[in-house]
């Protein structure tokens, strides 16, 4: 994947398949420690120990349409190549947490990419799920929560094109304000 935003989009698909109703996407930039941290956690069905040990193997997948599963191995590789680390923890029936840490200034850290666009697409495509996106840069942070948006929108669906566009721009502008 060329961008961290695309990794996020990819990993969240696992949460969708796991039947999650809430997905937390956290992007934490710590300049002093030179870390770029991405944490994705969900309340999906989780995995047992046996499966957890296999998910970083590219030749393991739960799907039946093809026999390889590259999503997690690619993210792990990108994080490790950028001087960081990757961990995945899960509890059956409770959910899964995927943590990727990159070296912020590392030459091989993929660019952030269009994270606001990804969050708005995920929210619009999965209206029955909720997403929380928190972006922190050092001491300041912005939090976006689809539950708040749904309360405001009432019967206007999140899949409405104008809504998707607005959400994207709103996140973009608020994240740009972070110092």
């Amino acid at each position, binding site marked *: *994947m060329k961008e961290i*935003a*695309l990794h996020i*989009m*990819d990993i969240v*698909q696992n949460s969708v*398949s796991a039947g999650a109703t809430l997905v937390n996407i956290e992007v934490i930039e710590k300049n002093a420690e030179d870390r770029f941290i991405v944490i994705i956690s969900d309340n999906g069905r989780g995995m047992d120990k046996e499966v957890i040990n296999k998910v970083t193997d590219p030749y393991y997948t739960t*799907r039946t*349409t*093809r026999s390889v*599963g*590259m*999503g997690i191995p*690619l993210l792990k590789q990108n994080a490790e190549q950028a001087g960081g680390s990757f961990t995945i923890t899960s509890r059956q029936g409770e959910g899964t947490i995927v943590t990727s840490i990159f070296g912020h200034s590392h030459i091989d850290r993929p660019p952030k990419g*269009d994270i606001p*666009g*990804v969050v708005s*697409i*995920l929210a*619009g*495509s*999965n209206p029955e799920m909720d997403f929380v996106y928190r972006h922190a840069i050092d001491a300041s942070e912005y939090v976006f929560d689809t539950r*708040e*948006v749904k309360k*405001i*929108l*009432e*019967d*206007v*669906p999140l*899949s*409405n*094109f*104008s*809504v*998707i*566009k*607005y959400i994207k*721009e*709103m996140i973009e*502008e*608020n994240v740009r*304000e972070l110092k």
Partner: protein
Amino acid sequence: MNKVKSLADLKKMKNKLQSDISLREKSENPESMIQVKVAMATCGIASGAKDVMDFMITNLDKRNIDAIVTQTGCMGYCYAEPTIEVRLPGQDPVVYGYVDVKKADEIIEKHIKQGELVDGIIPVNYETINKK
């Protein structure tokens, strides 16, 4: 400097949207709408499915076409990604492979607007004689 967009502004926009929004979109019956599904598993995303999805959302909106654009998983055509599935109301879905922005534009103009099939279809939904 412009004011940063907030949830309060979204509330104002909602009131306008509520009057604009089509009755079809409000109905809980997606079958009555044009549906575009973009395959967004690892294979799709890696080959540029997000750009295709962005293009679809922006351009269906610009061209005033009532439709729903959503994501779907891997359909097993990883070699032909990005793939998209187009379903017009009352018709069988059609899957296109190797979709880029140019192909997406052609699909909107010909298939979605005029119901004319475009080059690049992956045959999936054909029924064999044996089945009948």
